[in-house]
């Protein structure tokens, strides 16, 4: 991933990568460094942050720091899983719809239109009812529902390059469709796709929480950042600082994803070429 590597040479990209790395580390080791049992109730409910409970306690007297740490893997993995599913079932048809003929194009367009028309919550509830109420099923539902966004974005990006003369030249050499996409199309759509992915991952984190709020997917008392946020919101008058800790983590993750996406966009595609040429101090072509 040349584009990602060059994005890390910008300050914004580096900061974003460091924050994301910390979040990932948290997702891996979070449950093991939690000072208390995240599920254990105690009499000390809704305590303010103090020396024992750094982030305070929630309405059942559970240690918030432990819950935030223990909830990290579930929150992060589920968001990535949903986006991963969405990417696979959105991007692949998105690219191929441009090249594989009008019938295939028509079918994929109508399927994606159909998915866009589905009301999100009703679909999620229906999937939970059909496949059982668990995290995997909920993430499949979320993934399917964000796929049309990826499909549309990818398709639009591919369309603007699909019939470029260099693609025709490549086809005249007898290049396969896969090769044409890999060598000529992929680098053009990647910046757009990365930004969309970062945004979708951010949305994914929040969707997981909103589903938890409805009791779909992650079932209480299992902690997730979104779940902690939702329960804290009910006790704002008693513990107004409550939502700060889970929100800070969600914001840091979402914010750095967006920052990274921005850096990648700036260092690849047309922007990236202009940057590169400017750094080399040469005349910039009318690309």
């Amino acid at each position, binding site marked *: 991933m040349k584009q990602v590597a060059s994005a890390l040479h910008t300050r914004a990209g580096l900061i974003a990568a460091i924050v994301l790395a910390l979040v990932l580390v948290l997702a891996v080791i979070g449950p093991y460094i939690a000072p208390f049992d995240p599920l254990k109730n105690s009499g000390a409910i809704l305590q303010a942050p103090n020396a024992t409970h750094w982030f305070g306690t929630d309405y059942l007297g559970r240690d918030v720091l432990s819950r935030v740490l223990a909830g990290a893997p579930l929150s992060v993995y589920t968001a990535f899983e949903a986006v991963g599913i969405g990417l696979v079932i959105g991007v692949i048809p998105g690219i191929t719809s441009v090249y594989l003929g009008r019938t295939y194009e028509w079918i994929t367009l109508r399927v994606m239109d159909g998915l866009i028309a589905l009301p999100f919550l009703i679909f999620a509830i229906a999937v939970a009812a059909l496949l059982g109420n668990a995290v995997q099923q909920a993430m499949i539902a979320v993934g399917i529902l964000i796929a049309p966004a990826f499909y549309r974005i990818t398709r639009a990006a591919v369309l603007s390059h699909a019939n*470029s*003369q*260099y693609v*025709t*030249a*490549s*086809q*005249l*050499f*007898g*290049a*396969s469709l896969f*090769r044409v996409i890999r*060598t*000529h199309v992929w*680098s*053009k759509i990647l910046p757009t796709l990365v930004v969309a992915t970062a945004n979708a991952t951010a949305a994914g984190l929040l969707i997981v929480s909103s589903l938890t709020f409805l009791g779909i997917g992650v079932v209480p008392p299992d902690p997730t950042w979104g779940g902690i946020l939702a329960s804290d919101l009910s006790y704002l008058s008693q513990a107004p600082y409550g939502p700060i800790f889970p929100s800070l983590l969600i914001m840091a993750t979402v914010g750095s994803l967006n920052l990274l996406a921005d850096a990648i966009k700036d260092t690849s595609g*047309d922007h990236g*070429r202009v940057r*590169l*040429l400017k750094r080399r101090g*040469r*005349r*910039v*072509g*009318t*690309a």
Partner: protein
Amino acid sequence: MTALLEVSGLRVELGHGRGRTEVLHGVDLTVEPGQIVGLIGETGSGKTTLARAVLGLAPPNSGTVLIEEQNTTKLRGRALRAFRRSGAAQYVFQDPLRSLDPDRTVFDTLVEGLVVQGGRSRDELRDAADRVARLVSLPAELLSKHPGELSGGQRQRVAIGRAMAVEPKLLICDEPVSALDASTRITILELLLELRRERGLGVIMITHDLGSLAGVADRVTVLYRGNVVESGSTQEVLLAPQHPYTRLLVESVPSLFDDEPLDSNRRGELRDAVRALELDEPVASVAGTR
């Protein structure tokens, strides 16, 4: 000697559904090895469509395209890709900036055809790129550059080099010099002449600029509204044009020594003559030089 390219009775329709229009109405064209054939005609006359049909980019309704005696109109899918990998016919686009992938270096672009053919090591590709760069007079230090860092003439050399790397027998150049300034134009035309001399390359040069054909083409074919209206040696066609449309084209070429290239009465006369002959087909609306 067998012809390199033999197009006969080629009919091509473009567009979909009710907008479908026949753009070529049975075109014949022959190119011998080592011959440069100029294809001239106004915008919408079907020049580019003819080139695309020869290359299998626009499927014909009827007629045949024989490249080295192989009928390419019947090839589909895998067979078509296999034929293309042989590199027999290549295409050079009008606008060298848009025809080069801005993300890939000159080296990547030059060896793309060889990479697609497969079976070459990195070193062999390096050698091939150096050879092609010399062939089209590109300085070796440009190989690591991106198209945005090159001048217009250099870009067109890269585009010609990309096509020449697979050692084609037939090169179709669509307005190869119209995006270039006059002095660069000459060097590119000289390059084509040299390639013809050294490689026995057959060339179809699509253009609306008669001036760039005069010193270069052996034969000229005039396309008007999807029909070949005149075809012959360059001298015959340019010095003694038979068809009114050709006459209009020839007389419209501005000369440095005339005060007025073509007076308006004469031009009107010729236009009327062309109209009188009207080939009762509407001007193709879909085609264009791009």
